[in-house]
C-alpha cells in the first residue's frame, strides 16, 4: 500500500476549528487535503476536471496541499453548511455523472439520530460518521470507500474490454460469413447448372456440350480453391488475434523464395495480361519463416495482378548487411494516401479499392507476418499511379527493424 499515490480528500466544514482538526487527522493518515467551507465551494472543487498529465500546479494556490487543481478522490462532508446543507450537496454530486463516483463520507455533530443518518445515506452518502469520531475510524472508513471505488473502476474497465472484444469477434464472424458465401455461391451455381445441363442432355450428352460442362467443373474447382485460401486466412486472423501466428524461423535464401513464387504466378500473370518479372542480385540469406514469407509475396503479387490493369508487375529483392528489402510494384489503380494506413487494418472493406472480393484479410495478415518477423511494411502509392509495397526484414535472428518489443518468438 505504501507505493500507492496519495489520495486527495475534500474536507467540507463551515466551522474553522472543526475543519482544521479534520484536515490534521486526514494529513496524519497520509491523505492530501482540499478544503471548502460552503456547499457551493464544495461543488466547485468537486467538479474540477482532472488536469492534463504533466500540467504544473499553479503557484500561490490558496488551498493546502498539491496538486491543487485536481478533483478529489473522496469527500468528507459535514451536514451543517451555511448555504446548501450537506444532504443537498450530496444529492447534487451524485446526480452529476462527472462527480457521481466520488465516495462521500457524511459527518455531523448535531444530527446523530437514526432518522438523520438514514437521510444522509439516502441522499447518496456512502458512509455516515457522527462527531466526535476517532482519527482511526475516519481513516479506516475512507480507505474502505476508496478500495470499493477502485474495485468498481476495475470492473468497469474489464466490462469495456470484454464488450470491445465481443464486438470485434462479432465483426469478424460477420465478415467471415460474408466472405465465405461469395465463392460458395459461384460453386453452387456452377454445380446446379452442370446438373441441369446433364439432365437436359439425357443419357448421351452431345460432344459439343462437353467442353462447356467441363468449363463449369473448372470454375467450380477454382471456387473450392478460393474457399480453402479464405478459410486459411480466417484461421490466421484468429491466430494473430491471440498473438500466436506460429512463426518458425530458419536460414532461408530469399532469392530462391522470390523466384519460386514468381514462377508459380506465371499462369495467373498471363491471364491478367501483366508481365511479371523478378529482379534479384544474387542469394540473400535471412532468418525467416519460409512459408510465411511466401505467403506475404503471394498476397502482394496477387493484389498487384488483380489491380494492376494489365500493366507490368515487378518484384525486387535487395539487401544490406542488416536487412533485406522486398518490393512488389504495379502500375494499376493505386491507393489514395488517406487509405495507406487503413488498408493494413483487419476489417477494412469498401474503403480502398484493394479491399473488396475477399482480399481485405490478406494485407492485414501480411502486415502481422512482417511484424512478427521484426520487419516493417509500407506502401508508396497515389490514385491512378500504381503502388509499390515495400517489405523490410531483419536478416539476423532476434533483430528487429520496427522496435525492440515487436518480434514474436518462434513456437
Amino acid at each position, binding site marked *: 500500500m505504501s507505493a500507492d499515490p496519495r489520495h486527495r480528500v475534500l474536507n467540507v466544514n463551515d466551522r474553522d476549528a472543526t475543519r482544521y482538526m479534520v484536515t490534521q487527522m486526514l494529513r496524519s493518515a497520509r491523505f492530501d487535503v482540499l478544503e471548502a467551507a460552503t456547499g457551493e465551494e464544495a461543488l466547485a472543487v468537486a467538479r474540477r476536471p482532472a488536469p492534463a498529465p504533466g500540467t504544473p500546479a499553479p503557484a500561490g494556490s490558496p488551498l493546502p496541499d498539491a496538486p491543487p487543481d485536481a478533483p478529489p478522490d473522496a469527500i468528507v462532508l459535514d451536514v451543517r453548511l451555511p448555504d446548501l446543507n450537506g444532504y443537498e450537496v450530496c444529492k447534487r454530486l451524485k446526480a452529476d455523472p462527472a462527480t457521481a463516483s466520488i465516495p462521500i463520507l457524511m459527518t455531523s455533530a448535531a444530527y446523530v439520530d437514526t432518522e438523520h443518518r438514514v437521510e444522509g445515506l439516502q441522499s447518496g452518502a456512502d458512509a455516515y460518521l457522527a462527531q466526535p469520531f476517532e482519527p482511526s475510524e475516519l481513516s479506516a472508513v475512507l480507505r474502505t470507500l476508496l478500495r470499493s471505488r477502485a474495485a468498481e473502476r476495475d470492473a468497469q474497465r474489464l466490462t469495456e474490454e470484454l464488450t470491445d472484444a465481443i464486438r470485434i469477434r462479432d465483426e469478424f464472424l460477420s465478415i467471415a460469413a*460474408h466472405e465465405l458465401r461469395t465463392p460458395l455461391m459461384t460453386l453452387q*451455381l456452377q454445380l446446379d447448372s452442370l446438373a441441369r445441363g446433364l439432365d437436359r442432355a439425357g443419357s448421351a450428352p452431345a460432344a459439343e456440350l462437353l467442353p462447356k460442362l467441363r468449363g463449369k467443373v473448372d470454375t467450380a474447382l477454382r471456387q473450392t480453391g478460393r474457399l480453402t485460401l479464405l478459410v486459411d486466412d480466417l484461421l490466421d486472423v484468429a491466430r494473430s488475434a491471440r498473438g500466436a501466428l506460429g512463426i518458425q524461423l530458419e536460414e532461408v535464401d530469399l532469392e530462391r523464395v522470390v523466384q519460386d513464387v514468381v514462377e508459380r504466378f506465371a499462369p495467373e500473370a498471363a491471364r491478367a495480361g501483366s508481365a511479371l518479372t523478378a529482379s534479384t542480385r544474387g542469394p540473400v540469406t535471412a532468418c525467416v519463416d519460409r512459408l510465411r514469407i511466401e505467403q506475404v509475396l503471394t498476397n502482394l503479387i496477387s493484389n498487384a495482378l488483380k489491380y494492376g490493369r494489365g500493366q507490368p508487375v515487378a518484384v525486387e529483392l535487395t539487401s544490406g548487411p542488416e536487412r533485406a528489402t522486398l518490393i512488389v510494384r504495379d502500375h494499376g489503380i493505386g491507393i489514395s494516401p488517406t487509405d495507406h494506413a487503413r488498408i493494413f487494418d483487419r476489417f477494412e472493406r469498401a474503403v480502398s479499392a484493394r479491399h*473488396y472480393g475477399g482480399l481485405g484479410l490478406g494485407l492485414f495478415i501480411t502486415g502481422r507476418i512482417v511484424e512478427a518477423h521484426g520487419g516493417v511494411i509500407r506502401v508508396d502509392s497515389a490514385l491512378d499511379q500504381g503502388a509499390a509495397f515495400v517489405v523490410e526484414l531483419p536478416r539476423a535472428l532476434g533483430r528487429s527493424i520496427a522496435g525492440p518489443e515487436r518480434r514474436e518468438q518462434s513456437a
Partner: protein
Amino acid sequence: MSRSILVVDDDADVRSSLQEVLEDEGFEVTVAGDGQEALRKLDGGLAPDVILLDLMMPVMDGIQFRAKQLARPRLCSIPVVVLSAQSHVRDLHHQMRCAGALRKPVRLQELLETLGRIQGAPGSRRLPRPEA
C-alpha cells in the same frame, strides 16, 4: 421475346457464373461491377426487365444504387431482386422496396423461381427503350 436481366455484383466469378447460368436458361444478361457502372449503363439506355443486385460493392453500394434508381422516373419501376451475403438481407426487402431478397449462396432453382414470379406478375412493366 427474351427476358433481360442486369446483374450487379463486384465479384468477377459471381458475375460470370450468373451470366452463364441465366443465359443457359434463356435470359439476356448484362453485367456491372458496382452501382455506379450499373447506373451508367441504365442511364445510357439499358432497359432490363429485372435487376439482380448485390449490396456490398465498392464505389457505389447496392443501397446507394437503389436510392438513385428510385429517384429516376425512367428507371424507378424496374423491379430489383437483392442478392446478398448479408444475414439480414430479408429485412432490407421491405426497406429497399424490392421485389425479392435472396441470400447467398442461393440455389439456382430458387433464383429462377423468384425471377419467374416477377416476370409473370401482373403489372410488371417493360420499359420502352428511349429514342436513339
